[in-house]
Structures are given as C-alpha cells and as structure tokens.
C-alpha cells in the first residue's frame, strides 16, 4: 500500500494548499557499529562477490569503507567451502564458483572474531521478454514509464527484482514483484517512480534505458520488499531494519539470483 500512502499525501497537499518542508536539526544517538554484508552470486560467470562494510553515525558522511581481513567462504550445494579473495578494500570475490539455477549456496564469514552465515538458492531463470517505454499522466505530468514483460511460471513462489538504469545511472527506487496475485500469467509491470520532481532526472526522448531483471528466492525478496521501512522517507511502515537472511546479527543479505538485462533507447 505504498502507492496509497504516496497518493494520500499528494491528496492532502492538494487539500492543504500549503504544506512546507524544512531541514531541521535532530539529535540522534549513535548506536554501536554493526556489520553490513552484501553477498551476490549470479548465473553469469565470475559473479560471486561479498562486500563487508559497517554502519556509521547519522552525522558522518556517506562514504562507507570496506572492512578488510575477513575470512569469507562460499560452498555450492554443500560442497567444499571455497575461500573468497579480498580484491578491493572489504570486497571479496572468487571466479571458481559460478552460480547455477537450482543450486543452494552457503556463505560463511569470520571477521574480527565474529561469525556470520547465510544460505540462498538460485532460482530457475524466467525470461525478460521485453521492455518498452510508455507515456502516462502521473499527477498531471506526462511521464515516461518503463514497462517490462515476462511470463510467470506455473508454480507459486516466484519473485523478482528490477534495476532501472537511465544513461547508466541507477534509479534509487527498489522495484520488486512476486507472484501472489499474478501466478502463471503473462505479466506487464510498470516501474513507477514517485516523488521525482527534478526534471533533470526524468526519462526523456533519446535516453538509454537499461533494465536488469533478477529472479530471487523468497528470503531475498523479503529483504528488498522490507527495505522500504529503512529508507527514512516511508510513511507507510513503522521504521525498521529490513528482514535479513544473514545469521549472527549483521545487516544486509546474501542473494543467489539470476540476472538478465535489456536496453532500449527512449523514442
């Protein structure tokens, strides 16, 4: 019901004639630092990487340096644990493991005496059939919106994430879908972006639009679905940390997913 909340706020603003925004000073407490783990393994070769960062105080800058010196391993369907090598500060990768649909991957991390773990299953791929651009009236403005089509498989439990890049710049909005209401159908979904008032950031004729579709397992879907509550801008849900599939008390996720991209030029 994110849509509802966004729309109701728009309606309230219409009603109120005036509503005003102001940047204010708030004293926030600094919590103890927590590890943030982001692990990805995909069905494309050489794409197994894990990054480790930490939380920071609100007042600090938005540069999140990686945490070095961790021992990171990934195993494929319960096989031998393959160590990942630190290739950049806090970034651990391997090309020995390639993700395969239907396989389950196990992540283990030892960092500064703390251990974390996770398990994720790479789903069977669903084809990204097409992407196209459509004009729609959103709050009175004609807006170009990216549409995606795919055919949802007959079995229940498919989940997807879409990443939209405009001229190689990624859109902030997290787009996720599952098949709760669309199981087994040919699906056309729109990547709706709200609150984008900056004309420079809107899609225009001539732009190059790339969409990457990922097929996710359910725990990873839950992570991206629930991250809305941590955006700091949601009226929708009680603020909370997203539901992680990492054990041991870290933030973040470990995602085994398929990946497929398509690019169009905006007519």
């Amino acid at each position, binding site marked *: 019901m994110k*849509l*509802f*909340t966004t*729309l*109701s706020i728009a*309606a*309230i603003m*219409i*009603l*109120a004639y005036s*509503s*005003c*925004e*102001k*940047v*204010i*000073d*708030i004293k*926030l*407490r600094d*919590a103890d630092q927590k590890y*943030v783990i982001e692990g990805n393994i995909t069905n494309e070769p050489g794409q197994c990487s894990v990054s480790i*960062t*930490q*939380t920071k*105080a*609100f007042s600090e*800058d*938005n540069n999140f340096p990686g945490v070095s010196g961790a021992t990171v391993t990934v195993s494929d369907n319960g096989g031998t644990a393959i160590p990942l090598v630190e290739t950049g500060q806090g970034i651990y990768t391997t090309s020995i493991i390639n993700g395969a649909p239907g396989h389950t991957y196990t992540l283990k991390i030892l960092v500064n005496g703390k251990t974390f773990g996770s398990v994720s299953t790479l789903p069977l791929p669903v084809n990204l059939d097409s992407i196209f651009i459509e004009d*729609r*009236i*959103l*709050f*009175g*403005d004609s807006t170009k919106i990216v*549409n995606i089509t795919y055919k949802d498989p007959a079995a229940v439990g498919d989940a997807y994430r879409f990443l939209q890049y405009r001229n190689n710049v990624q859109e902030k909005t*997290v787009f996720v879908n599952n098949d*709760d*209401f*669309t199981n087994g159908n040919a699906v*056309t979904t*729109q990547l709706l972006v709200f609150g984008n008032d900056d004309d420079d950031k809107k899609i225009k004729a001539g732009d190059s639009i790339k969409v990457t579709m990922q097929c996710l397992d359910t725990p990873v879907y839950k992570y991206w*679905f*629930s*991250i809305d*509550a*941590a*955006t700091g*801008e949601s*009226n929708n*849900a*009680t*603020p*909370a*940390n*997203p*539901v992680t599939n990492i054990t041991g008390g870290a*933030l*973040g*996720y470990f995602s085994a997913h398929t990946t497929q991209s398509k690019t169009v030029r905006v007519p």
Partner: protein
Amino acid sequence: MSKPILLAVFLLSSIAALAQQKFTIAGTLKSKKNGETLIGASVRTGSAGTVTNDYGFFSLTLPEGTYNLLISSVGMQTQTIPVVLNKNVTLNFSLEETSKDLEEVVITAAPKGRSLKSPQMGIEQLSTREIKNIPMLFGERDVLKAIQLLPGIKSAGEGNAGFFVRGGAADQNLILLDEAPVYNASHLLGFFSTFNSDAIKDVTVYKAGMPAQYGGRLSSVLDIKMNDGNNQDYNVSGGLGLISSKLNIEGPLQKDKSSFLISARRTYADVFLKLSKDPSINNNALYFYDLNAKLNYQLGAKDRLYLSGYFGADKLGVGDLFGLKWGNGTGTLRWNHIFSNKLFSNTSLIFSNYNYQIDIRNGANDVTLFSQIRDGNIKQELQWYLNQKHNVRIGFNSIYHTMRPGDITASQGSNFNNQAFQRRYSWENALYASDVWKVADRVTLSYGLRLTAFSIIGPGDFYNVNAAGTVTDTMRYRSGQFVKTYVNLEPRAAASFELNDISSLKVSYVRNVQNLHLISNSTTSSPTDKWTASTNLIKPEISDQVSLGYYRNLLDNKYELTVETYYKSMQNQIDYRDGANVFVNGAIEAQLLYGKGRAYGIEWLLKRKAGKLTGWLSYTLAKTERKIDGINNNGWYNARQDRTHDIAIVAMYQLNKKWSFSANWIFYTGDAVSFPSGKYSSGGEVYFYYTERNGYRMPNYHRLDLGATLQLKNKKHWSSELAFSLYNAYGRENAYTIQFRQNEDDPAKTEAVRTALFKYIPSISYNFKFK
C-alpha cells in the same frame, strides 16, 4: 453462568418485598420547542432523585406523600412541579429551552456523568452548544475533534480522525451511532469525522467504568445519539462552508407523536479542483458525503418505534491511475415498550456495514480490490426501576460478523488473477446484568457482570504457525462448524462516596474484552487498515482498569473540578512482524506478534459552566507502553500514542446578542517514534539503521485556533449567522512527518526533513435556519 444473575435478581426481589407503602412516578421528559426527548435530565426531590434514560424515560419510587419535583436538564429552564403521591402517577412533561435573551447563559444542571451522586466515572460529555462554538479546521464542526480537547482523549494528529483513550489504540474505541458500530469514523483521509454535528443530539464518552451494557472494545465507548426530529414544527436549516455544505430538514409526521429528520452533507473540494487549469489538480477526485435519516413513531402511550440510518462515502481518485472509495452504512430499528411504570424495555435490530474499494488502472491491467465487514445485530434490554434503592438493567446482544478481507477482480487479459481472500464468519454473544444500588444516603454502588462468548465459525482454513512465522499446519473447517469459542466474564463495579454537598470520591474497576482487531502497520491510519476477528491463534484482547476520582463543585456550581487517575493493563496485544506484508492471502497470523500493554496517568479538568465566559482547562499526565515478543528485544517500549503531557484550554465568550467568540489552545508532547541511530549502504543506496522501537519523540505540538460567530438575523421564522474561524492562528509549523534522506546537492550528507501541514487556515461559513 446465569447463577450470579439469578442470585442478584433473587436478592433484589427480597429487598423489594421488605419495602413499605410506596408509589411510583414515571414518564417521559421532552423539550417543549421541538419535542426531542431529553437524555440524562434530572428529576429530584430532596435527596431522592433519578435521571432520564436514553429515551427520556424516568421512574422514581417514593413513600406516599406530597413532593415538589425539581426537573432540570442542560440548556433547559428548571421547573418545579408539585406532586401528590397517593397512587402511581404518570408524568410526561416538556421543558422550555433557556431563553437566548438571558444576559447570562446559566447552566444549572450538571451533565449526568458529572453528578456527584452517580458512581459513573471516566465519562465525558459535550453539549451541541459547545461543539458548535469550538473553532475547527475549515470551520467544519466535528464531534470527534471536539472530544479530543477533553482529558484522557488524545488526538491521533492532523490528518487522522483516530483518537486514543487512556493509552489505548485507535481501534480500541467502540464508536456507536444510534447503537450501530461504526468501523471507520473518518472522512477525507481523516481530516473530518463521519458525524454530521447537525444531526446529533448527545455525545457521551466512557473512558472507564463502562456500564455492563457496553462491550467489545478495550479503551472506550463513544456513544452518539442522533436527533429524533422535531415533532412540533417543520424546520429547514443548513450551512454553506468553505469545503462543504449541509442541509437539515425535520418536522412532525403527526404533531406531538411522530417526526422525521433528514440531514445531508457534501464536500465540494473537487468542484474547486475542476476549476483549476492545472491537470495535476483538476484530474483528481476528492469528496465525501453523508446522509443521516431518522423516523420515530409513537404507537400508543406505551410504545414507540425509531428507525434511523446513516450512509456516508468517500471518493478519492488520482487521475486515471488510482481510485479509492470507502464508506459506512448503518441502520437501527428500535422499539421502546413501557411494560409498567417500573419496567422499560428496548429492542433493537441493527445493521452495520463498512467497505472499501481500490481501483488501480495500470494500462490494460485494471484491478479492483473490494473489502467489507458487515454485522447483523440484535439487542434486548430491560430497565427495571425496582425501588428507590435499586435500578436494574438486564439484556443480551447477539452479533453476526461477516468479513471479506479482499476480493480481487482483474480486467480481461490482465496480469492479475481473480482471487477472493477467505471470508471469515463469527458470532458474538453477550449477556449482562447490572444494578445501581443506593447503599446509603451518600454512598451509591454500581455493579454488573457481562458474559461474552465469541465463536469463530467455518467454513475456512485455520492455521498453526511456529515462532518463526511459518505455517506448520492447516486445518480445514466446514460451513457452520465451530472453530473455537472464547468465553469471557467481564466484571464491572463502581462506587461513589459523597464527601459533602459539593464534593465526592469515586472508584471503579472494569474488564473489557475485544475480539475484533484492526491490524495496522503504518504510523498513520488508512481506510484500508485491516479488521480481523480473533482466530484459533489471535486471542481476545483483554483489559483491566482501575480508576479513582475526586469531583468538586466550586464557587456556587460555577466551576467544576474533576481529577481522575487510572491504571490499565492489557493482554494479547497485537503487532506486525518487521517487514510484514500486510496484503496477503492465507495465514495473517504468520505476520503477527503478540504481547501486553500497560497505561497509567492522571487527568485534571477544571470547567467553568456559567457566565458569559465558559470553557475548560484540561491537563493529562500519562504513560503507555507495550511489550511484544519479538519487538525491541522483547523489552517495554513507548506506544506511539505515549504522550507525557497533554493540555487543552477552551474558552467561549458571549459578548452580546450578536457576537460570540471562542478560542482553544492545545499542547502535547510529541508522539513516540522510531528514528535511526545510524546508517549504512546497501545496493549502492543509503539506508538507515534502527535500534529501538519508538525510542525518540516528535517535536512538541501546540496550536491556537480562534473562532467568532456573528448572528445576522433572528426573526420568528428565519435566522442566520456567519461563523469565522482561524486554524493555527500563530502559524506554528507542527511536524506532520520527519523524514531522513541524502542531501540532494551533497549526497555525502544526510539530513532530517520536517513536513508541516496547515499554516493559518482561515475559513468562513454561513448557517441559516428556516422555521
């Protein structure tokens, strides 16, 4: 279970048998002007006395003799009637309204709840005069907003019609309109309430010590009674306001005997939207309307029928993208029968409906979601005015609930599958008895018992869910099969001790049980919040509240002081798991967590009731917390509505016959909220790190509103007035939300942004009456 009731009846009968030669005076009190029955009017002689019930009926049993009966009611001229009591007497009497020409508005009678003698405590009432004078947003008189200026009743904030009573949640208030439960009392996303003040006769809020005839919600009962309609003359009145207009028509069907009332209201914000050239505005729909209608018919000296109905709806549409409609409908058919001058009966057949519909138009992918909750309800109550010492009430109530959590209809060729979430059926029964017993001259005791049985009925799938929220077992029930019945006993007790002629002390205990739960994940309320009945896993919510109060009349009854303190504990409270998907078919229990709550506080109210200047000063000091397994590391945390201080000052001043002024100022501690205590990066974006639930506070809220009314014409057949108001007079930017985001110019920085609504909202409305 009926044993205690039988025992009580037996005891009372034996007391009756011991009584000496006595006679009963009984009847109905009305207003002379419009024939409306008077609720809570006082009939007294010396230390003996009673008040009229919800239908204006009273019964007073006294020893043989000669009496002067003093009859009084708020806003009415007090009358003294000599009565020779040597046989049973029927006294139907009409009171004159207090004349407007009087230099001073003098209110002599205390409202029923404030009576020093009555053991009822935790009760708040507003007169229609007060509701009319309090300045409101857009000049829209609003019962729900007005009661939030009283101690212990807290506003859920701007853009939110919900209210919190003594630390309870917004769904823990039983809102009754002519006995019919109203499930969503908000219009226009919460800026207005569903109650058209023109159609309302009486508003009573019970915060504690609820009488046994009320039940089903933990925190409060808001009992709203509609006008019956003028049975003397035809009347047309109405108002033109900035955002809405209303029209009210009433008159006799048979003079003195029966009457009708129709009251309608519609907003026209959308008409203005259409005028705009900007398509971002003129494409949107935004309106509500409501209709109140009532008929009452006197069948004979002993029987009266009432038929009342309410229908209201909201429509919100944004371009060709999205539509949301929601609305309540209620209907009540009541039959009053006076069996004898000591036995009064009321039978009610009640219907309530709430539904909403969301339309999402998404290219070829149109999808509609429909959700509904519908009740059929029967009530029977007997009021037995046994003797001077006992006033007994016995009744039962049976409600059948049908819930449709969501039916999805998709257009042909759509992505979406047609789908209907499982319907839920439940049957709620209650049996109750209570007695108000005048134990001694200055001591009155009220005690009662309510027995409730809530049955969940098939067909349907019910689940077992493990601690991680995974469904472990599904049980399928056939149509009509009983899944589970929760039986609860709710004792109610209250006592008043008059310390002297001007002050009294009261104490009360009440247990309430709630089987319908509004499950909401959001910090603001929305029409699509989900009502869910108890299931095999969702247990009935239970609250126990003890309350102690001190009441004193000051300076010749010009002022009234009330101090009440309370402690309330709540069991089986419900919250969503983090990251729950509110909108799923199947086991909602997989998304829920359970725990307990506690609330305590002290409330002061100083009211000036007489003179040119009237009004009140209210102050509440309170705390309310929750402890839910799986939230906040299982520790106690502040509930969202936890506000330490809450102050309201309301003043109304009658300058002369033409001008009257009003003002209110409110202040409260900011709501408890969750703010981040850190941040991190995920997927290349900055997100915020939360450590404790509701560990921070919104900024303190305060606001001044001003109002003025100018009487234009006041002729025999025509009167009119202009009402002005200024909402948020000193333009305080109160925080509606506080959000956190990356600075647009310098993405390396994060900032907190406060959004405020409504700075200085002036309004003007024109009201008229054709008599």
